[in-house]
């Protein structure tokens, strides 16, 4: 069966200019992510992992190269068009959870739905949020505030928020960085289950144990993709 391409990066470079010095964060990165993939990107500190993830998440623009997501070339998009694509096609999970303390768990998860081009009815929002809460087994915490939850629970809420708009891809940045090993394992377990249920995931991690849980492992070194393994095979 032919897999559907969700994301395609062709020859992506990213340069930073600081104090008249050029830093090449990414140098000619090529990457294609297909429907149902579970990719891990690992590498040493400063290798460009986070830069790659922010470019993938449309939070930053590449210096050169082509980036296509869900059939859209993002090179010449406006700020608003990029926000809309981000809203509709990308789900983010951050190391520091990035939940809004003033909002309840329910409202945190519903947040992406509020920025949709086509607003949903309250009923539909409720059904989507509840369904995502069920996926992360946190239905009983809907009315709690994030600061009333443990780190692991907060990360699960962050995952539910990332899933609520049914995105093309889940971008996950060091999901276990702020968690103890027990909670970290539980979150990783959840991501694997989501992938098995069909969610496409691209994860940045420096923990080789968790990197191994992905179906495709990429290694980034000095801004270039060093190795690529899929199910243990080079492609």
């Amino acid at each position: 069966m032919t897999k559907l391409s969700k994301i395609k990066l062709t020859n992506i470079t990213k340069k930073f200019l600081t104090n008249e010095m050029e830093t090449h964060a990414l140098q000619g990165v090529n990457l294609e992510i297909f429907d149902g993939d579970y990719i891990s990107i690992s590498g040493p500190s400063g290798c460009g992992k986070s830069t790659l993830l922010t470019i993938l998440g449309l939070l930053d623009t590449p210096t050169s190269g082509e980036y296509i997501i869900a059939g859209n070339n993002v090179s010449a998009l406006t700020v608003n068009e990029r926000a809309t694509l981000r809203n509709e096609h990308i789900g983010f999970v951050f190391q520091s959870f990035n939940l809004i303390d003033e909002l309840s768990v329910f409202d945190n998860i519903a947040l992406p739905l509020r920025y949709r081009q086509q607003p949903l009815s309250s009923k539909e929002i409720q059904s989507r949020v509840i369904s995502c809460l069920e996926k992360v087994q946190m239905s009983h915490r809907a009315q709690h505030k994030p600061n009333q939850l443990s780190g692991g629970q907060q990360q699960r809420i962050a995952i539910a928020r990332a899933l609520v708009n049914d995105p093309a891809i889940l971008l996950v940045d060091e999901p276990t960085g702020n968690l103890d090993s027990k909670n970290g394992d539980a979150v990783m377990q959840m991501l694997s289950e989501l992938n098995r249920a069909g969610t496409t995931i691209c994860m940045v991690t420096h923990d080789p144990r968790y990197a191994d849980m992905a179906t495709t492992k990429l290694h980034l070194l000095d801004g270039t993709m060093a190795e690529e393994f899929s199910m243990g095979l080079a492609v």
Partner: protein
Amino acid sequence: MSSLRHVFGQELRLSFASLMRLPSFSFTVIATLAVTLAALAVVLNINYLVLTKPLPYPDAETLVVTDQSETINGDTQYGFQLLPTQFHIYSDTTYIEEMALMSISDGKLRDIEGTPFIDGLRVSPEYFSLLNTPMLLGRYFNKNEGVNDQQSVAVLSAKTWQEHFKSEPAIIGQFTRIGNQQYKIIGVAAPSFSDPEVFGHTATEVWMSFSQEISTTQDWDSITGGINGIARLKAGIAIKQANMALGEQINDLYQSQEGVAPDTSIGARFVPLKTKIIDDSDTMALMLLAGVITLLFIAVTNITNLFFSRAAEKQRVMAIQAAVGAQPKHLFASMFAEAFLLISAAWVIGLVLSGWIMLWLENDLQYMFPRMQNLQLDAVTVVASGIVSLLIALVMAKLAVKQVNYSKLIDDLHGSGKGTGAQISAFTRNLLVATQVSLATVLILGAIAVLSPVFDRLAKPVGFNSDLVTYLRVDSGAVEEGVFEYAQQIKQKLANLPEVQGVARALSTPLAMGWKNYLYDSNNKMLGIVSTGMYDQDFFSVLEHPILAGRSFSDITNSDAIPQEIIISESLAKRVFGNKPAIGQILQAAQNEPLTVVGVVGDIRVPDIGYDYELERYYLPYPGDQLSFTIKLNAPLARAKILNVLTTINPNFSISRIYDLDWALERRLREAKLVAILTVSLVLLALTLAAAGIYGVLSYAVQMRRYELGIHLALGAHTHSLISMVVKQSMMPVCIGILSGLVIAVMAHLIGSQLWVYELRANMLSFAFALPLMGVIAIIACYWPVKKVITADPIKALRNE
């Protein structure tokens, strides 16, 4: 759009929850703006009512007031009319379409308990039709109750009917005595009726018909501001045209009278009704508006700083929103929702507050400004302040979101606790401080320029001793014969009371202005129209009014043998006689009736609304056709005791008016005091806001530098060197603010004096006061936040605790 509406609706709910968790931020914004919006609403309301709101009469813009001019020796003054000339204009059919004749006629309601004194106006029936007076009960005058119809009918104001006639439903057809005349009450005006304030800002309490005969052949001896007319000119007739033609006619009439003073003439000087009502209140109203707008700018600068800090605080939340797909407009909606909630709350509280302020200041505002009857917040003011509030909310949200670099937001999301979050740039901080200081400097300079003449006026000695002096006017009832003898008896009996130190007869007190008369030299040459007082021989000693040369009047012992003497003020003596001695010279109050100058008395300074002091005055012996007295007391004197004295002389006698001179003086200084109170309140409010704002910005700046200060401290820096470092850096925008404030104030003064004919007596005192004051406020605002950091252990600053 529908998406944004949807987002905004939810943002309002979420913002409410967020703000509930930020009580100090919410309170500061709401309190600052509520007070400012309250001041703005009051001042906008005043300006709208005084300057802009159309008069509530049909075709009001076509109504004119038939003011006259009077020219003496080439000097022209306005606002004094003659009844026969007004009657001539009233009778004109060539230029005048319709005209109402008006004459002030105050009096006591004799049939009402306590015989209250009310402000009345005699009017012809056209008054009601021209103004389309709405009636609560009965009717207004018909054409058979007009001038020379010899009818005595009255229309009560709604307030008079309620207060003095107990809202009696069957009032129509009843009779009541006003002064010495009986009137049939034929109507009660509706409470919504505001009578045009042609004669000042006092609301008319009763309208009476002209019961006396009026013609062009009599009443030529009384030129007064208490007579006037409201007219509508015939279609196609311009005011200028009517002034020319009717002015010439009334001057011809005037010149044809016997005993007309040489070198005098009169004319017509019709003015639109609105112009007459506004008079010179617009300057004060506009100055208040300028002050309150400056206050608004200061408040907005404060709020801007608070919203910048809030935006910095919300940076992380906004980054999360952006990461899940929020566009810049969504972030704006989020910030706007907060601003909208806070500013709406401030607007509502501000309106309630302004309602209270107006209720509290109602009497004072009515005294100072026209059209303040039935004072309440006008719908236009509510809408205007609402629009201002909405604009502030939009600007705050826009400025706050502008501080947020959308494309850099994501930096906030990486890692946990990396970076210090968003900061307000040094340039923005300095700009905020400089703006605050600049605005406050302008306001202080402006306020001092307004206040210094006001304080001069308040502090200026009046020129006589008003302490424990009481003015008494006796109501003689129907007694008309032997007034002089009665007066002598009353004076004697009052003087015998142990509480009384001295008694003098006087037509009025020196505090009652407006009594003016011609003055001629011995050759019948007109010397001008001069303030006049009529007193007996004891008056100057009773009032401790210094006689600088000569003496007081000879004793007045007989009403038929009044001494042919005159006493003049120092300024008048100087003008008329220069350095020559005045005593023994001849002056005349009427032609061919020489009076010898027997005394020169000190100038008195009676404060009056908007006028300079009338220093030139002359005094004549008072023969007395009125029973009025000035009494110097040793101790309080009961009203009952005075009444007892009066009734033992004649049982018909009663007290008509009695008041202390101090009270009258207080009333004369009321405008100056009100101006001072309003200005000082405005400045204090502005200074408080500016000081709080400067403190807020500088405190934020120090907060941002805590870590750096911690390093300095850890490396052994002395506290005084750190304080001096921070204060020096912070004082730069303060100095720029003060300098730009000075430049703006000077420019505003120069432009203002070109555009408007006004005089602001700015002096060096303004600068000597304003500059150190702003400097001190700024230094305290700089020092305080630094002190908090340096007095704690350095490690706290290093840990950002």
